[in-house]
């Protein structure tokens, strides 16, 4: 597989390479879908829809560009459409997650203490799930999937400045939650994306 999901230029015989590389991102797409939907069945539906559209639109993929980012763009577009057609309001945070997040016991004040906390995995996941969707998406795409700002901007269809702002705000909300749980009740609300420095 080529680095960063970039297929080489070519046609015809590259079909198999396209398919194989596209499928190599299955776990990453599913993990992201799970973060978006927070329901395994919805996440599976979303990923299957994504591949269905991707394979149908293979001819529209520009060889030499980033296949992984292209698939993630389809995933996010499909998610938006799925949610638009879903009768339910989007889950931002379920009550269980809020309860668990409120129970985070960390009181580590230094980065070293936080990063060596035994429950960091669990705490980070809970705090992440409690983030508003826009911030969760941006932080996940940057810090877990390691997309560039420009790639994230294209995937979620917002300006680069907004991407950076969401990453920044999302990280700070996570930090507040991890370091001083219970003092940031706004984590369950949609905080403003505007000025963060005062």
């Amino acid at each position, binding site marked *: 597989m080529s680095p960063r999901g970039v297929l080489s230029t070519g046609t015809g015989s590259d079909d198999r390479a396209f*398919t194989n590389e596209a*499928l190599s991102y299955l776990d990453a797409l599913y993990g992201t879908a799970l973060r978006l939907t927070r329901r395994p069945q919805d996440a599976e539906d979303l990923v299957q829809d994504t*591949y269905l559209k991707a394979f149908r639109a293979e001819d529209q993929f520009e060889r030499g560009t980033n296949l992984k980012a292209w698939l993630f763009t389809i995933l996010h577009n499909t998610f938006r459409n799925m949610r638009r057609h879903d009768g339910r309001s989007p889950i931002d945070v379920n009550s269980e997650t809020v309860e668990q997040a409120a129970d985070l016991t960390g009181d580590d004040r230094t980065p070293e203490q*936080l990063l060596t906390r035994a429950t*960091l995995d669990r705490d980070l996941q809970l705090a992440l799930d409690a983030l508003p969707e826009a911030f969760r998406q941006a932080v996940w795409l940057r810090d877990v999937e390691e997309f560039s700002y420009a790639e994230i901007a294209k995937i979620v269809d917002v300006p680069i400045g907004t991407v950076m702002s969401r*990453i920044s705000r999302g990280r700070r909300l996570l930090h507040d939650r991890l370091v001083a749980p219970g003092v940031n009740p706004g984590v369950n609300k949609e905080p403003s994306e505007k000025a963060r420095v005062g």
Partner: protein
Amino acid sequence: MSECRDVEPLLTPFVDDEAAPAERATVDAHLRSCPRCREYVTSERTVRQAFVVCRASLHVNASADLRRRCEAQPAATSASTVFTRLLPRPSSGQAWRSWVPLSMAATLVLAVAGVFVYGLSSGPQALAAQLAADHVKCFDFAPTPTILPEAKVLGREWAAARGWALKVPETAPVEGLELLAVRRCISADGTTAHLMYRWRGQPLSVYVMKSHPPRIGTSPTIVDRLGQEAIIWSKGERTYAVVTRGRPDGIERVAQYVRAAAE
């Protein structure tokens, strides 16, 4: 504070090592005199490092079933398979798996044909065309469970995931009907339940629509569309449809069973 506002958009690229050298120098200079921005940078950097530490635990693996379904899609969408799969099939003695893969491209043909022939209007005929296309497409990915699932369990899972109650007719050996799975219908508006069955070795779909499309009556209407037969009716707020290939004998009887069990 105005200087903080000037520097603020540069802090995240600074943390991510994405800032240009000149911007980096500006931030460095500012941080030396601004404890508040230093704190912001430290908090962002700490969270970024936390993701590095936890990255392995944040990654999840897709299920084997999802992998199988996704791996099946390139073959199903391959144009080379369209014509062979659209060839007439023997009408008797077909094995379950031999019926399964009408291709995705064939589905598109059916769906487009449905739109052109029957228009975009609502009503039983347009609905039947849409469901016929979905029936063909979804059985490209039909599960082949070794142990048939329990209808009540699938109904509970659906209600928990989708927020509305769904009565799933049980496997009925007397009717030759075996429940395979319940899926969200991805071709409709996203709220339709697709109950997938094997009936006398053939695929049979039961669709349950949460809403009530216009012009669907309470009496079952039989509609032949695109080589599939649909029996459609409504009850209360729900609309139901049974879809099979062709016009097999006994379809009315199994539809009666479904009607009694699903409503």
